[in-house]
């Protein structure tokens, strides 16, 4: 990296060397410490002495007699539950239209951790932040404790009797009944639904999705004659072009796509090839941050871009084009050329929900021959089956008084659909309104009856992720509250009082058992499917041919719809990786997870380009920003501004999923609700507002809690080491920076000079490698770590005080050609920077600076390479944190458990929430330091399991929480003493003269020149670019 001319920066304040930033940059903690700001009425010194005297007396008295503790065994111990021994069950995460095959870890019969199911060919063992966090939602006190009627608790018998009575009245009078739901993926639930419909034939089922992909299914209907959302296979694509699709973060099936995509980004000296990824988008999405070439475009330019690409490809394919539109998007021509060069091995996706855009994209993929290779129509996905047109019609009909009964099936349209206000207004006209929401959502509060559903961890069910790819939902805990599974409720109302479990089994016996030939015993089949969690038989072949006429019609519509009015802003509505559609809004782990790109927590905001901010006169320093009045159509809302590098000039971004009013104590009043701003285009929900958007300054100051510039270490450009694929092809060590230190008249490698004697590792030597080329920044690891290691949530105020507790953070660096000077240059640098993600946790240094400064030896080195942190010995001097070059140590400024001031820390502040805590990990007290332990509890458990079986641990048996969560397989954990381990092979460890050398040229230590010799290795970032260009 000696010739690297790039500047790396974490935030604009660092780039501009803002005085405020510089003042704090080298400090672990900000100067102001508002721990005990003295209130004149508060405790005086005298009170303190009194209290202390009393305290000592009380403590010594208390110490004389230890409290009596009870040990309560089971009355009848279940065969397969042993206290202290975890059990794992395959199940499926279900939330709205999202479903992921998972394995649930339970202790003493309560789920405490969710991991991916490696048997699933869809997600292949990956998870994301929302899946990891969902286990906390199970223990949310704000779930409904039983059925409700008119806002008051009732019982199931009353509810059933009244609902059935009203239904029969309505049926007798021929009234219309509506079932409104998100995409239902369960075949058996659908069967139960059809039984209900058979009993009440006037029932209409309306499916919508909070974040719709109706545009895709509609486009397929128009261009192929079949409405569906196909499967994509990014792993087979050598050229990937995404037009506004955040496929790694939020689009359709992000875990699956990340798994596939990361396969094309893995390189080594024998395989020096990777995919090339072009991204055209308005907001800087996580996917855009990973792209090799990214072009910021306005939403209105999307139309011209797609049309131009279609015509360019058509010209190459010798087919007729559509009426032309001019696009000046950079890299467009290059993308077209490469797509054509990789016919059949390329993929074009668009995030737009406009069917016309999707039709042209279908056309492009069709001309490229991608159907059958990277696009699979045989197994369409079931995640997004919503029909926006149906939903709009429903809202109209409801208001017209056409519906006598409405059932909201596990959905919350009053909040999360653009028709929300209209649905809320029309509800009064329906005689019977029922919701099956498991909590008092905005919709549940507006209906007469609530028949709460189980949490997915309490359910028996099945899920069809894609055609022919089934996954079973298995309960891992007895229902905590008096809830009932939704399909069982519907069966009951249809007059069938069957228990849902037997209904499910019967359905599988008659409809799935015959689709396999491995066994003729149903119980064997059922047990095996339950054990595996998945049952995959594949889809059915569909012969589809693209209808070129649809393309010209679509191009016509595009020409009309996408007209730029250059003087005005355009709004691009998106969803974030953490909060998504907002249904898990009351989950504090997700609220506090810093956004992969903006690094903001606990908020939504307008993302705005530096140029636009300059024009408005808005500046942002360390999260200090101001609110503006955003007016869209007739609606005005007050939203803070976040200046986002890479944002297309003239566009604003605003995330969905916030501004909830009935989510619960955590999610209420966080940000603003963007759903009402969603517009309609060609019958589909359209997530861009192309006209009528204006912004007005209010000068009201506001703080956004970003973790962005916290724990920074500036001026050290040896942290990110990167090269282009071209350079890597010639030299696998390209981009590496080799520091030298001066010793005795010559320059030597830093490792040659050491004060330390080093450590001898006879048994294990644990280590981590992190491939920065694979890491997409998705933050699944941070939430997985939070769940595994009992990490508290501190709340927005404390994040602002730089006291977030996450043990693993993902540093997001922007880089651009060296800017010097004033605002104009800043604009250029922030125009479209490159982005690098670097997961950062305790580096477990062999020459650890923290260990040498601890006055009480609370942090020490183990014989297995771990840097150990002993909470019960720590006295809280914080010397270690001050001396840590990586700033990965976290201090417990407060008691975060059993403290009403931290009541958003749900996992530690009520008895129900505490059930999620990992019993093998201490809940830390106030005043002690903590940090990544390399999941030492898992290491110890794995070693013990091996010892009990008289063998060495097998590689892969012990896995850190972050590594097992990673959907991109960017993190490898293992024993570097085991020559067969994945990590030894990845690092090409070679033993020479009793010394182990790392043979992999991409591997480097962050801050190598200080020779702290970490056990965490990073692999250089390789961008698939022609040459070094910013």
């Amino acid at each position: 990296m000696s010739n690297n001319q790039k500047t790396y920066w974490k935030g604009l304040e660092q780039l501009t060397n803002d005085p405020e930033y510089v003042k704090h940059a080298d400090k672990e903690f900000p100067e102001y410490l508002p721990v005990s700001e003295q209130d004149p009425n508060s405790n005086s010194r005298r009170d303190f002495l009194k209290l202390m005297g009393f305290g000592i007396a009380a403590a010594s008295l208390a110490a004389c007699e230890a409290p009596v503790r009870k040990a309560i065994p089971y009355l009848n111990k279940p065969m397969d539950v042993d206290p202290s021994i975890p059990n794992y069950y395959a199940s499926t995460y279900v939330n709205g239209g999202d479903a992921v095959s998972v394995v649930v870890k339970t202790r003493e019969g309560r789920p405490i951790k969710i991991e991916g199911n490696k048997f699933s060919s869809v997600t292949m063992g990956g998870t994301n932040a929302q899946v990891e966090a969902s286990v906390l939602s199970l223990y949310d006190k704000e779930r409904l404790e039983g059925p409700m009627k008119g806002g008051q608790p009732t019982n199931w018998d009353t509810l059933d009797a009244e609902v059935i009575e009203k239904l029969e009245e309505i049926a007798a009078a021929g009234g219309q009944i509506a079932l409104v739901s998100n995409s239902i993926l369960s075949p058996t639930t659908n069967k139960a639904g059809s039984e209900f419909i058979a009993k009440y034939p006037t029932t209409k089922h309306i499916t919508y999705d909070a974040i719709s992909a109706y545009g895709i299914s509609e486009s397929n209907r128009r261009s192929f004659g079949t409405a569906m959302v196909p499967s994509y296979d990014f792993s087979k694509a050598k050229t990937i072009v995404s037009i506004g699709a955040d496929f790694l973060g939020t689009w359709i099936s992000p875990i699956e796509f990340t798994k596939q995509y990361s396969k094309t980004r893995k390189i080594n000296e024998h395989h020096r090839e990777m995919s090339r990824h072009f991204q055209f988008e308005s907001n800087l999405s996580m996917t855009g941050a990973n792209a090799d070439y990214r072009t910021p475009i306005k939403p209105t330019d999307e139309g011209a871009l797609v049309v131009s690409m279609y015509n360019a490809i058509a010209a190459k394919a010798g087919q007729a084009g559509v009426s032309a539109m001019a696009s000046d998007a950079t890299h467009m021509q290059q993308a077209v050329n490469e797509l054509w060069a990789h016919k059949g091995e390329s993929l074009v996706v668009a995030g737009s929900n406009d069917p016309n855009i999707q039709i042209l994209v279908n056309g492009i993929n069709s001309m490229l021959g991608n159907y059958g290779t990277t696009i699979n129509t045989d197994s369409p996905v079931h995640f997004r089956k919503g029909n926006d047109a149906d939903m709009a019609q429903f809202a109209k009909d409801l208001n017209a008084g056409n519906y006598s009964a409405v059932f909201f099936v596990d959905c919350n349209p009053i909040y999360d659909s653009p028709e929300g206000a209209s649905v809320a207004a029309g509800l009064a006209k329906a005689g019977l309104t029922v919701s099956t929401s498991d909590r008092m959502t905005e919709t549940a509060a507006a209906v007469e009856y609530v028949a709460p559903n189980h949490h997915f961890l309490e359910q028996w069910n099945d899920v069809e992720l894609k055609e022919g790819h089934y996954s079973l939902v298995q309960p891992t805990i007895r229902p905590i509250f008096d809830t009932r599974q939704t399909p069982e409720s519907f069966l009951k109302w249809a007059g069938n009082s069957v228990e849902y479990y037997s209904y499910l089994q019967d359905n599988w016996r008659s409809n799935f058992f015959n689709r396999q030939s491995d066994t003729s015993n149903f119980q064997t089949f059922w047990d095996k499917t339950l054990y595996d969690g998945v049952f995959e038989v594949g889809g059915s072949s569909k012969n589809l041919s693209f209808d070129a006429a649809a393309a010209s019609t679509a191009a016509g519509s595009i020409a009309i719809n996408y007209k730029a009015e250059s003087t005005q802003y355009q709004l691009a509505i998106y969803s974030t990786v953490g909060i998504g559609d907002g249904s898990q809004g009351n989950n504090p782990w997700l609220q506090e997870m810093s956004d992969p790109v903006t690094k903001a927590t606990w908020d939504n905001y307008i993302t705005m380009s530096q140029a636009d901010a300059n024009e408005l006169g808005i500046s942002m320093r360390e999260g200090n920003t101001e609110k503006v009045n955003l007016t869209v159509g007739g609606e005005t809302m007050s939203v803070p501004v976040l200046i986002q590098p890479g944002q297309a000039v003239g566009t604003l971004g605003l995330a969905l999923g916030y501004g909830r009013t009935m989510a619960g104590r955590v999610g209420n009043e966080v940000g603003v609700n963007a759903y009402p701003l969603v517009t309609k285009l060609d019958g589909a929900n359209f997530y861009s507002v192309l006209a009528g958007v204006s912004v007005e300054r209010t000068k009201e100051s506001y703080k956004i809690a970003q973790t962005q510039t916290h724990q920074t270490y500036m001026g050290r450009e040896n942290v990110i080491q990167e090269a282009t694929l071209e350079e890597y092809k010639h030299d696998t060590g390209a981009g590496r920076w080799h520091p030298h230190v001066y010793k005795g008249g010559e320059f030597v490698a830093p490792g040659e000079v050491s004060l330390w004697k080093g450590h001898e590792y006879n048994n294990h030597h644990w280590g981590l490698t992190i491939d920065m080329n694979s890491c997409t920044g998705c933050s699944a690891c941070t939430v997985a770590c939070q769940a595994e290691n009992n990490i508290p949530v501190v709340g927005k105020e404390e994040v602002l005080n730089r006291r977030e507790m996450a043990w693993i953070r993902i540093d997001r660096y922007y880089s651009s050609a060296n800017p010097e000077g004033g605002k104009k240059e800043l604009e250029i640098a922030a125009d479209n920077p490159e982005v690098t993600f670097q997961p950062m946790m305790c580096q477990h240094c062999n020459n650890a600076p923290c260990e040498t400064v601890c006055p009480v030896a609370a942090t020490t080195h183990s014989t297995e390479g771990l840097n150990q942190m002993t909470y019960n010995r720590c006295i809280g001097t914080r010397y270690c944190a001050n001396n840590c070059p990586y700033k990965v140590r976290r201090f417990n400024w407060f008691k975060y458990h059993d403290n009403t001031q931290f009541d958003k820390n749900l996992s530690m502040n009520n008895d129900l929430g505490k059930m999620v805590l990992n019993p093998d990990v201490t809940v830390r007290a106030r005043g002690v330091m903590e940090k990544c332990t390399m999941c030492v509890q898992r290491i110890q458990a794995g070693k013990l399991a091996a010892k009990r079986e008289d063998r060495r641990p097998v590689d892969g048996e012990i896995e850190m929480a972050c590594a097992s969560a990673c959907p991109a397989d960017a993190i490898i954990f293992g024993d570097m003493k085991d020559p067969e381990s994945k990590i030894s092979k990845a690092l090409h460890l070679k033993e020479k003269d009793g010394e182990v050398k790392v043979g992999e040229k991409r591997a480097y230590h962050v801050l190598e020149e200080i020779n702290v010799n970490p056990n965490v290795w990073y692999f250089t970032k390789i961008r698939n670019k022609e040459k070094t260009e910013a």
Partner: protein
Amino acid sequence: MISKKALVRVMAVCSVVCCFVFSGPGLFAQADQIPTDQAIIDEGRQLFNEWGCNTCHAVDKVVVGPALAGVYDRKDLPWIYAFVQNSQRVIASGDEYAVNLFNEYNGTVMLSHDIADEDILKILAYVKDYTDNPPVADVVTATGDGTAVAAEGGIPAKYMTIIIVTLIVVLVLILIVLALIIGVLTKYLNEKKDLSDEDKEIVEEKVNLGAFFRHPGVIGIVTFLVIALGSKNVIDGLYTIGVQQGYAPKQPIAFSHKIHAGQYEIDCQYCHTGVEIGKSANIPSVNICMNCHSSIKTDSPQIQKLYAAQESGRPIEWVRVHNLPDLAYFNHSQHVKVGGVECQTCHGEIQEMEVVEQASPLTMGWCIDCHRTTALNTKDNGYYDKLVELHNKSTKEPMKVEDIGGLECSKCHY
């Protein structure tokens, strides 16, 4: 009123028993088929314990199941094999003897054992040997009432006291004699008038205790001793805060380990099922108690509490005796299964305890001491092979827990 059925049953049992009593040995004259080879007998004893026969059976007395002495005289070998391997099948087949036996023991099911015929024969060899030669020597040592002979052949403890007491008595007598002699001699000298001045001084010398105690040296020494002893007591006292060694709370059920583990030698794991597989040893659930107590001592008020618990559905709330702080992680399987540590090492002579008490201090110092001195149980454990090899290269000392990082913080604190 006793029902007719019960009467018939009692009579049937009586007749069967009488049958045995009067038929005497030789009903099945197959004793000669049972091997008497000492090696086989030893193997049989081992198998008897390994298969957990000892949990329910003893040779010379009734435990849960019948005493086994002379069982080979009562039934033929194939019957015994069949019954041990699957008692329920034999009972179900309508075998009269089996059915009666089953009823006699209140329908307690003997679990099926997947054990080979020849192994059963070996066990029978042991049973026969035990029957024919009751282990007299064992009985004597076991019933020793505190006069147990010290292992290394030193002086027995009882004699030690006698010797010491005798010695003290002798010493006191000598002192008295000496005092008498001094008295006599002084008297004699006093009676003499012509004593020299020096002699006079000695004779008239008086012990001045006051001057002795006022001596600065003495005051210094006494003060030092008082302070030193005082401080030691305070420090020792402070160290015992939170240490509950000897803690023996009253339990809701007066369960006696002395009876179960001591007298009946029930394997610890029969009840403490987690001890080899998990962190917790597990306090047995009521259903484990009921395996035996559904038929044994059913009228005891203590056992009645079990039935009450089962009926009410409320588990028994035992008082926890061993309380480790939450910040310390201790795993039973690591110590018992991997390390091969005896339960008694930490829990004391549990088989002697009527009421369980905390035998060890459970302090970190106590843990560390053991980790410093205990050699690892590395035999036949593939995990340790390379470590032992490396260790033996550098030293001849056995590999201790300490040597593989057993004193490191993160082994117990995380």
